[in-house]
């Protein structure tokens, strides 16, 4: 498929304030249901739509840490009073938003719906019931040896990455420090205290070589994104953000018992997305890569084609990734500093891209932002690779 331009656009976006449920600091302690309601209300206000305008359209919703019911999408729309024609649920982890976006634009392209409402909320800091079970490969073949969830798996990918390509702690630190700088300019970021490289290098090792400041910070929060057909988007806003192309790939090298874990499936996904949109990495004005860990950002800089494999460290030495630089990266602070809203964390990158491309990013606005690339990763597999991989090219005009 090529020539996707002019078919679908992001016509609205909403992001609730984030919280770590520190009631002692005056932070709210809300449920996922409350965040869904809040995000939907914000979206209706921004788009000027009434809830009934979404009747008979598409709705996509994600799973969350709690509640994690077998049947959740039905309960969620009942709670929200939505009456859709199409209802889908994502269980793609960090790639939840990307997964919903692809399903939504395909439904719009098919003419099945005109609008597709993407909903994502999670409250990892105030889980009120039993935590969800993790993957059985984790329980049976990793945890008995003392692995600490994705921290240990990513630490091993990071070690291998450093070994193979000579990456230094300072390279990972650059991502951490620059994204924090962006967070200081984002009123909704959770961590706004400026960071220095020294702070990064002094942060404690959690799973050596992984430091505390290599890891995203959990927040409670919710998002809503409205996808619309190109013509419907124009009726809602004079600033639609067009979906120019997308790509995805799951479980790369599935049949190989031993594969390179320093390359993500974003490589394949981005090639698809570039081909579909007819752009090249040089056309990208801002890049929002999934940032559960700093090393993931380095890998995606390579896999999305901004430099050769293994050269992201040098790329970071020679290029400025701040909002004023050659390649602005995670311009709102990303999950490392703005916060990871649990299973909804991947919505952040799409909201920030849309905000930038609409020229609504305030102090951190990228000048002449025309094309945005969002790449998403989800679900760390047995060997420490990412199972779900996406790339989405967004443009300022339909």
């Amino acid at each position, binding site marked *: 498929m090529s020539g996707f331009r002019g078919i679908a656009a992001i016509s609205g976006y909403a992001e609730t304030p984030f919280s770590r449920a520190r009631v002692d600091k005056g932070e709210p302690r809300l449920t996922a249901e409350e965040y869904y309601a809040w995000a939907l209300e914000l979206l209706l206000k921004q788009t000027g739509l009434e809830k009934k305008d979404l009747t008979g359209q598409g709705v996509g919703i994600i799973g969350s840490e709690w509640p994690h019911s077998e049947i959740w999408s039905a309960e969620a729309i009942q709670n929200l009073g939505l009456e859709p024609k199409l209802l889908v649920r994502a269980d793609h982890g960090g790639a939840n938003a990307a997964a919903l976006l692809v399903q939504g634009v395909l439904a719009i392209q098919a003419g099945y719906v005109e609008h597709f409402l993407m909903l994502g909320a999670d409250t990892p800091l105030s889980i009120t019931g039993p935590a969800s079970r993790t993957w*059985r*490969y984790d*329980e*049976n*073949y*990793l*945890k*008995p*040896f*003392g*692995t*600490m*969830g994705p*921290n*240990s798996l990513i*630490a*091993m*990918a990071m*070690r*291998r990455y450093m*070994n193979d390509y000579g990456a230094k702690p300072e390279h990972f630190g650059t991502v951490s420090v620059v994204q924090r700088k962006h967070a200081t300019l984002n009123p909704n970021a959770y961590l706004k205290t400026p960071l220095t490289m020294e702070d990064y290098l002094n942060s*404690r*090792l*959690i*799973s*050596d*070589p*992984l430091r505390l400041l290599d890891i995203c910070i959990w927040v409670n929060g919710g998002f809503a994104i409205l996808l619309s057909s190109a013509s419907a988007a124009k009726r809602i806003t004079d600033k639609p953000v067009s979906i120019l192309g997308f790509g995805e790939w799951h479980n790369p090298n*599935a*049949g*190989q*018992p*031993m594969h390179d*874990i320093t390359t993500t499936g974003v490589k394949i996904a981005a090639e698809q997305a570039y081909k579909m949109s007819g752009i090249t990495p040089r056309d990208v004005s801002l890049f929002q890569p999934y940032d559960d860990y700093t090393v993931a950002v380095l890998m995606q800089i390579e896999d999305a084609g901004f430099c050769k494999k293994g050269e992201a460290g040098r790329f970071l030495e020679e290029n400025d990734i701040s909002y004023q630089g050659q390649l602005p990266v995670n311009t709102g602070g990303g999950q490392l500093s703005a916060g990871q809203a649990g299973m909804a964390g991947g919505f952040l990158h799409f909201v920030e891209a849309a905000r930038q491309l609409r020229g609504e990013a305030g102090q951190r606005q990228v000048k002449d932002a025309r094309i945005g690339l969002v790449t998403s990763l989800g679900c760390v597999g*047995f*060997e*420490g690779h990412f199972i779900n991989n996406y790339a989405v090219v967004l443009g300022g005009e339909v």
Partner: protein
Amino acid sequence: MSSYPKPLPEVTPLTKPFWEASKRGELLLQRCKNCSTYIWYPRHICINCGSRELEWVKASGKGKVYSYTIVRQVIGNSPEFSKEIPFVVAEIELDEGARICSNIVGVKPEDVSIGMPVEVFFEECTPEISLPKFKPAR
């Protein structure tokens, strides 16, 4: 029920031969009868060719460290592990061509390196489960 305080794998009909062999001090791997691919963790179908004809075969127990991490903080696992910190979790490339996650012991964490030759031994946890762990090869 055992009093072993840390997580243990579930023994299923699929994995029973593996854990029984572990008690005898033997490391088994699945091998596809059709395409000879070695597989870890245990599956119901060959991840390479799609055949369900998988057999358990004895592995050499020898391999090399593909990557490793030194765990320094317990997050999301049994607090019992805090008594062992720092300890090494590694991905080991077995000579047969499959990767297994385990611990490297019998060596200081800072002396572990990528490519280091290692060999398996078994640590008895309960009468049912002995976990395959690795130490530097002799």
